[in-house]
């Protein structure tokens, strides 16, 4: 740790690679995960879950379970029917959207494997799990609905009585007909965004106590504040009687941005029994019942001139909602609606998304939420267009992107990008990557028919983040605002408590927020403590998701600090007997303009306010302040990612040889944390490209229900990353944009573009994700028109000789 506090003019905290305050408890095992909580008399809940993707429940008998050893209670959906309400969807994207009732515990029909149908409450988790075997449920199986491409056909079985279509959301800007009519080049492509499982390392867990009608609910959640409101709305329990605590939370990636059946039921069970209860999922329960991510079919058309200038873009999406609409399920693909045009200028744009029900786990936000899907679509088809026009893919992008001098720029999708410099990020990335050198090597390998071909993948991305502004969210029919709250509490000893409505679960807010406040108030980094994640401590907030915490929550801190300084000024003037107008603020102290020896520090003012002995008339004895910040625009991080893959054309095995990313996320508060966020984001995006897919079989059973089947990559499956940065300030006072999702959004198309680029000599124009060795190899065989059967045998023999690391074998989700 450095000791700037003692130097005369401390270097700004913002920009320093401060080591994290959070780490001490995390590296020593002194953590407070929800599953660690033990309350006196606490009982354990286990859920019985549907083995059918779709079935009518004809009877549930829990009576035998009630007499099992250690069992206190057993319930079916009927026991909660009067009080459980319906799990909320806060984003009804169109006026005529179909939002089916979603009871936390099913009562009449189950619509995905894993849906809860009964539960046992017992003395310990083993007894609870045992007694599930004594519950009898009779089902009348109904046909599953598993493919969104056929679910809208008239003869398809129905997930809900109202049918399989939830909504259709159109958007159009510019004259599409003119853009496509007579265009010299029109390409049409279909891309698959496979279904993903977020797989935060900490499984979900919830503990609830009910004492005298007052509830305390601990949950492994990203959204304690939103959850509190929603629990009150769903159950009718008065909001003031619910306290929600998010203790240490082990990762989220969107999966803990949810109001879950288990949270609602824990509340109701605690109320029924008057005793605290705990439920912690197993990983296989989690894979089945934590909301999934992505799952789209994309049809994309692009029209261009011969010189590569884009005339128009036409996007038609089918998005799998799963069985129900959860918190923001229908809104996720719409976050992509505005991002398909990305960094490019064009004359016309049309977007349509149809939300379709299936008998699978509902989808919802997963790292990037809508923007990775959009970025993948546009960046993939840009490479196809470059191939069609025989242009270098970077050259094609440069001909179309918004030039740095054109900012602020309003895109065809109606967003106003405040800042950016795509030229600078790309130039730096090319240099770090040795773009020209790798292109030469690629030529040589192609010329020599090297069995290992080299591919270069490009992704020049931008994203909208910092979710807010409230007015815009309102215009998109989102059910809440997007502001963020902060409070500064100046303690009598000169120390500072910072209360934030953001709710970190790995992002390091305790550290970064301390840096921001240290600069604003001129107090040492070490003297600041950040409080969050408990609605009793931090009563207002919109929580953490969508890369919003810094751009919105960080700015709320700045606003609150402004107010502290304003209030302190009045007291300072009285303390040093000067006119407030003559005072000058330099972080940490007021001094009299022209008489710098006459000064008073913020700590002295805090103490004076606490004592309140000599305050001017009418001045309240505190300099604490709250602020709620609501920006007037999103923020738009961008960057250029370059990936080189070596593709073994004999085995289909893909190796990432180098990965370079240059991100422009505006002002960097803590470069250490930023780099970590980028690394982790890249890993998740690469994992989508190469490894991960949630697979259901023909009966609607989740095949990838464990981490042995769902292939979260390990250290040996991933490359080392080269990261760089360029900086164009965002329009907010801190100049910050957000970094939580950038790596994930950019990397998936960079990797797939690299794989396809390696395979161009075979005439291959796409490989469906995840690009497993089997899929890559099959793509090559198909392109060569070889004898697939005998080749497949040879391939299998080769595979058994070669360890394929953590890549899936023999799993095909039916997505050819």
């Amino acid at each position: 740790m450095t000791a700037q506090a003692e130097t005369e003019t401390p270097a700004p905290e913002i920009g320093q690679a401060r080591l994290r305050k959070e780490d001490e408890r995390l590296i020593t095992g002194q953590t407070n995960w929800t599953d660690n909580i033990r309350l006196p008399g606490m009982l354990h809940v286990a859920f019985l879950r549907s083995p059918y993707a779709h079935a009518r429940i004809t009877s549930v008998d829990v009576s035998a379970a009630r007499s099992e050893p250690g069992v206190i209670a057993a319930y079916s959906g009927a026991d909660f029917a009067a009080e459980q309400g319906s799990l909320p969807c806060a984003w009804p994207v169109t006026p005529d959207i179909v939002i089916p009732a979603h009871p936390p515990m099913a009562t009449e029909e189950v619509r995905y494997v894993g849906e809860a149908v009964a539960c046992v409450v017992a003395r310990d988790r083993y007894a609870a799990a045992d007694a599930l075997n004594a519950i009898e449920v009779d089902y009348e199986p109904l046909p599953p609905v598993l493919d969104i491409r056929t679910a809208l056909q008239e003869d398809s079985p129905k997930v809900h009585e109202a049918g399989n279509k939830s909504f259709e959301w159109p958007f159009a800007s510019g004259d599409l007909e003119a853009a496509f009519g007579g265009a010299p080049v029109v390409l049409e492509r279909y891309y698959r965004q496979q279904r993903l499982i977020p797989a935060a390392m900490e499984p979900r867990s919830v503990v609830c106590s009910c004492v005298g009608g007052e509830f305390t609910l601990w949950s492994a959640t990203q959204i304690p504040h939103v959850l509190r409101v929603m629990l009150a709305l769903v159950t009718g329990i008065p909001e003031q009687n619910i306290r929600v605590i998010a203790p240490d939370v082990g990762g989220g990636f969107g999966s803990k941005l949810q109001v879950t059946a288990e949270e609602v039921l824990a509340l109701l069970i605690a109320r029924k029994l008057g005793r605290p209860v705990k439920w912690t999922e197993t990983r296989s329960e989690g894979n089945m019942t934590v909301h999934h991510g992505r799952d789209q079919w994309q049809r994309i058309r692009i029209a261009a001139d011969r010189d590569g200038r884009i005339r128009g873009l036409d996007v038609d999406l089918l998005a799998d909602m799963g069985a129900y609409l959860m918190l923001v399920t229908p809104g996720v693909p719409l976050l992509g609606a505005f991002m398909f045009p990305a960094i490019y200028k064009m004359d016309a744009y049309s977007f349509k998304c149809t939300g379709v029900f299936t008998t699978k786990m509902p989808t919802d936000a997963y790292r990037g939420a809508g923007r990775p899907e959009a970025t993948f679509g546009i960046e993939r088809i840009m490479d196809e267009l470059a191939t069609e026009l025989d242009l270098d893919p970077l050259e094609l992008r440069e001909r179309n992107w918004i030039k740095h001098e054109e900012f602020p720029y309003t895109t065809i999708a109606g967003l106003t990008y405040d800042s950016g410099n795509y030229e600078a990020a790309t130039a730096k990335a090319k240099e770090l990557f040795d773009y020209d050198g790798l292109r030469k090597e690629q030529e040589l390998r192609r010329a020599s028919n090297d069995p290992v071909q080299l591919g270069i993948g490009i992704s020049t991305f931008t994203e909208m983040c910092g979710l807010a502004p409230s007015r815009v969210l309102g215009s998109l029919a989102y059910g809440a605002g997007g502001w963020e709250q902060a409070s500064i509490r100046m303690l009598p000893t000169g120390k500072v408590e910072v209360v934030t409505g953001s709710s970190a679960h790995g992002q390091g807010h305790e550290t970064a927020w301390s840096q921001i406040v240290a600069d604003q108030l001129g107090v040492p980094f070490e003297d600041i403590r950040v409080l969050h994640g408990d609605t009793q401590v931090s009563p207002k907030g919109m929580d953490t998701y969508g890369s919003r915490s810094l751009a919105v929550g960080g700015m709320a801190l700045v606003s609150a600090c402004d107010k502290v300084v304003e209030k302190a000024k009045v007291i300072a003037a009285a303390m040093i007997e000067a006119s407030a107008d003559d005072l000058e603020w330099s972080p940490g102290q007021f001094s009299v303009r022209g008489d710098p020896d006459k000064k008073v520090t913020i700590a002295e003012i805090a103490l004076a306010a606490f004592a309140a002995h000599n305050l001017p008339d009418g001045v309240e004895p505190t300099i604490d302040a709250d602020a709620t910040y609501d920006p007037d625009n999103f923020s738009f991080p961008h960057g250029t990612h370059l990936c080189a893959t070596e593709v073994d054309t004999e085995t289909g095995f893909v190796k990432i040889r180098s990965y370079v990313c240059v991100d422009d996320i505006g002002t960097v508060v803590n470069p250490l944390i930023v780099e970590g966020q980028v690394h982790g984001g890249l890993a998740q995006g690469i994992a989508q490209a190469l490894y991960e897919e949630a697979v259901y079989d023909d009966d609607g059973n989740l095949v990838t229900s464990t981490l042995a089947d769902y292939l979260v990559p390990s250290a040996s499956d991933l490359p080392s990353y080269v990261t760089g940065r360029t900086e164009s300030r965002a329009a907010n006072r801190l100049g910050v944009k957000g970094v939580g999702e950038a790596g994930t959004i950019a990397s998936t198309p960079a990797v797939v573009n690299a794989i396809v680029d390696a395979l161009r000599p075979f005439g291959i124009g796409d490989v469906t994700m995840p690009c497993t060795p089997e899929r890559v190899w099959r793509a090559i065989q198909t392109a060569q028109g070889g004898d697939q059967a005998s080749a497949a045998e040879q391939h299998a023999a080769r595979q058994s000789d070669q360890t394929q690391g953590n890549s899936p074998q023999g799993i095909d989700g039916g997505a050819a």
Partner: protein
Amino acid sequence: MAEITVSVDGVKYADHVEPRMLLVHYLREIVGKTGTPIGCDTSNCGACTVLLNGESVKSCAVLAVQADGTDITTIEGMASDAGLHPLQEAFHAEHALQCGYCTPGMIIAASDLLKENPHPSDEQIREGLEGNLCRCTGYENIVRAVRRAAAAGVNA
């Protein structure tokens, strides 16, 4: 119920446990060592890794009765009076953790790796830790942290 005697982080415990009880549940719920978390049911993620007689094991894949008579070190026993373990220091210094859920298992597994190979290459670090999953860091800084601890001579 079976009677077992184990030493956990230097303290001796004698308990009666169900024969089917997993070691990780014994550590967390009977001994109170909640620093060791559970990440999966299939011994894939490694979050629950502890040292059993000095060897790293996934404590969800060991029964408590199998640990009878053994000496167990969890993340809570890694630091000493002299301060944090060099791997704990290195994970902090290299920002090798974000949410921190995998960290206990990752540090324990890394200590076993460095015992067997005090100066591993980056590739050997990646292979040595492939039984431990992290969803936050992308592993880059974990590799750096293990390299840093190796350079500091963890086993010197």
